[in-house]
């Protein structure tokens, strides 16, 4: 008997699927490319600069926190880069670069790494970072004086500071873009809001790759459409404005921060839809989507516990034998 065989030992199963966390994150990155390209097309250097600031900050923050916490950095799982890109896409092109940097720092450093790393975060990191700088705005105003001299000159700004369709709706402005133009590409608001069509193309790729499920986007969009129709607004126009598309397909569907039960996903999506409508028509017209998703992130553990399906052989008792 030969004893020279080199045999590898491990527990079953001995076959593994090819999909891994890095490959899935890379797919999401790819899915964001169409809308990123559109943002760069519309906002030129401003978009490039914002995205670059966010990506660089994300990488540095990841390295800093992994050093602080004494563990191996996880840059290769793409999650830090992805969070950085998401943060950039949530800002308007003309946003001050230090707010973008602070948001990214909070997103990657606090909302992801300090929570235990990818998988343990309760809140969507990118949205957390974005909302944090909104809430910190009064304090950041002090800081902006220091950074102002560091702002690069990227050309004239006037054409880029268009009012968003949502703000126009609110103020009753007559210059509303047509639905078709809004859907294909209209440069206003955050980078990710320029083209619902391209967001949908990215989302289609994620569906094709099996990374997202129809339940959350469908329940968000459905709820928003029904409620805005009841309130007398054009439902299709509503879902094409603001961050609803990117929120429904990319943010609310984030694996870690959404429910893992089928019914839970529907409840989660519907609740986000209701909150979006409440924010949009009842409170402030901006960032309603980000707040809605973050609020519901906090309810995910509860939703999970309350919506589990019974296991095989649990409910149905033994059938009678003839």
């Amino acid at each position, binding site marked *: *008997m*030969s*004893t020279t*065989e*080199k*045999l*590898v*030992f*491990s*527990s*079953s*199963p*001995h*076959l*593994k*699927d090819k*999909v*891994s*966390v890095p*490959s*899935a994150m890379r797919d999401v990155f790819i899915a964001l490319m169409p809308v990123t390209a559109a943002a760069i097309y519309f906002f030129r250097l401003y978009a490039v600069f914002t995205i670059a600031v966010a990506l660089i900050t994300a990488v540095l923050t990841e390295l800093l926190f992994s050093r602080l916490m004494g563990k191996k950095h996880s840059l290769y*799982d793409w999650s830090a880069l992805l969070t950085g890109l998401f943060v950039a896409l949530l800002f308007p092109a003309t946003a001050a670069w230090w707010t973008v940097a602070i948001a990214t720092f909070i997103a990657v450093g606090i909302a992801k790494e300090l929570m*235990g*790393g*990818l*998988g*343990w975060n309760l809140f969507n990191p990118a949205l957390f970072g974005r909302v944090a700088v909104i809430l910190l705005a009064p304090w950041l105003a002090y800081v902006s004086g220091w950074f102002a001299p560091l702002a690069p000159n990227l050309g004239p700004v006037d054409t880029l500071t268009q009012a968003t369709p949502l703000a126009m709706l609110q103020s009753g402005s007559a210059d509303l873009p047509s639905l078709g133009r809004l859907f294909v590409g209209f440069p206003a608001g955050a980078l990710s809001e320029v083209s619902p069509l391209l967001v949908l193309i990215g989302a289609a790729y994620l569906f094709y790759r099996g*990374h997202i*499920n129809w339940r959350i986007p469908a329940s968000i969009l459905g709820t928003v459409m029904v409620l805005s129709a009841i309130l007398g607004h054009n439902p299709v126009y509503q879902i094409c404005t603001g961050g609803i598309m990117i929120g429904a397909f990319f943010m609310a569907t984030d*694996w*870690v921060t*959404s429910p*893992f*039960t089928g019914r839970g996903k529907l409840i989660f999506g519907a609740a986000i839809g209701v909150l979006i409508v409440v924010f949009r028509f009842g409170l402030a017209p901006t960032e309603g989507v980000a707040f809605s998703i973050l609020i519901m992130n906090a309810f995910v553990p509860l939703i999970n516990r309350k919506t*589990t*399906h*019974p*296991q*095989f*052989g*649990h409910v*149905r*008792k*033994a*059938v009678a*034998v*003839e």
Partner: protein
Amino acid sequence: MEVKQFVGGIHVPHHKSFSEHKAIKEASVPAEIIIPLVQHTGVPNQPLVNVGDRVKAGQLIGATDKFVSAPVHASLSGTVTAVERRLCFTGEMVQSVVISVDRDQDKLELADVDLDKVTREEAIKAVREAGVVGMGGAAFPTAVKLSPPPDKKIDALLINGCECEPFLTCDHRIMVEQPEKLLRGVRLLMDILGVKHAYVCVEDNKPDAIEALRQKNKDPQIVLVKLPTKYPQGSEKHLVKAVLDREIPSGGLPFDVGTLIQNVGTCVAVYEAVKHRRPLIDRVVTVTGQNVRDPQNLLVKIGTPLSHLIAECGGIMQQPAKVVVGGPMTGKAQQTLEAPVVKGTTGVVVLPPDLALEDMDYRACVSCCRCVEHCPVMIYPNQISIYCEAGLVREAAYWNTMDCIECGICAYVCPSKRPIVQWVQLTKPLIRQLESERK
């Protein structure tokens, strides 16, 4: 016949082409055989031979008077050289009889019994004496299964020819090459149990097996069922669900829903045991994988060391390899090739270096739900993995860890590569302990 799809499950690449069209070939005689005294689920046997004894092929060498057991026989003639603890494929050391095999082997003496004159009790006794166990891998003593408690009425017999594990083709070849023996075994089992309906269940990736059985089956009470190919179709719970739409209750057994399931190989063994009084001393083993030179379906004497089988098939081509006993989804990886083939050994899969995965670095659960979507027993492997990893036994029990059938789908699809099955296997005994302490 109409079948229902069960919820969950997955299409794993089935890799059957290595051996599915290779006829069963008798393996050569090894120089030494190791016969573990426990090859079944149940009470271990006591050795009936001593070192130095001459034994004949088919001779009883281990038995016990306990009910849940199956005796073992010498599979070849020779001299007992040791009765000691030897490595089993499970990684445990098991009391075994080691036999130095004679160069010249006598032909096994077989009886020829008229099956029409055999009573139910005689048949069960013959099955018991032949040491027949479930040959699909679980190795539960067949005679025990054929004597269900009197309050459990069995009305349907399911014959499991699904063979849903990738790579394995031993059941496939038995169905193609021995359909008559198989069907006579089924009839025998039906008569023993007194059931009017038997369903021979085959996945639709084995059309030649279905055709062979269809041609030979003259019995209107034996129904041939073609099932969609989906892992784990061959799991008892999912087979009963698909064929009869009956759901085995959580923690229950097939006879709780009036059914009994036998593997196709077991049916042939039962036929041989009753008709010829032939003890279970050999079985068909698929030796396959990308990394073995000449994959084959071999008729192997029980006790043959794995190294002999692999040498018989041309040896391992590339190192490091992974040798798995059983299918790749649920089988056991081997650290050496010294363990013997036992009654429940369905196959030996030799995986190449790129598939010879060690326990790799895993990440935290990212809650992607792929395991939840595909789990055939509809539990939440994501939660279970988190609590089992953390050693939170109570929480693991809350999430129904005990219902896990360890099919391996969750760990197969996991993008974080979490060793979920391993954690479940480590946690189940702790949950049992917790539950017994509560009582």
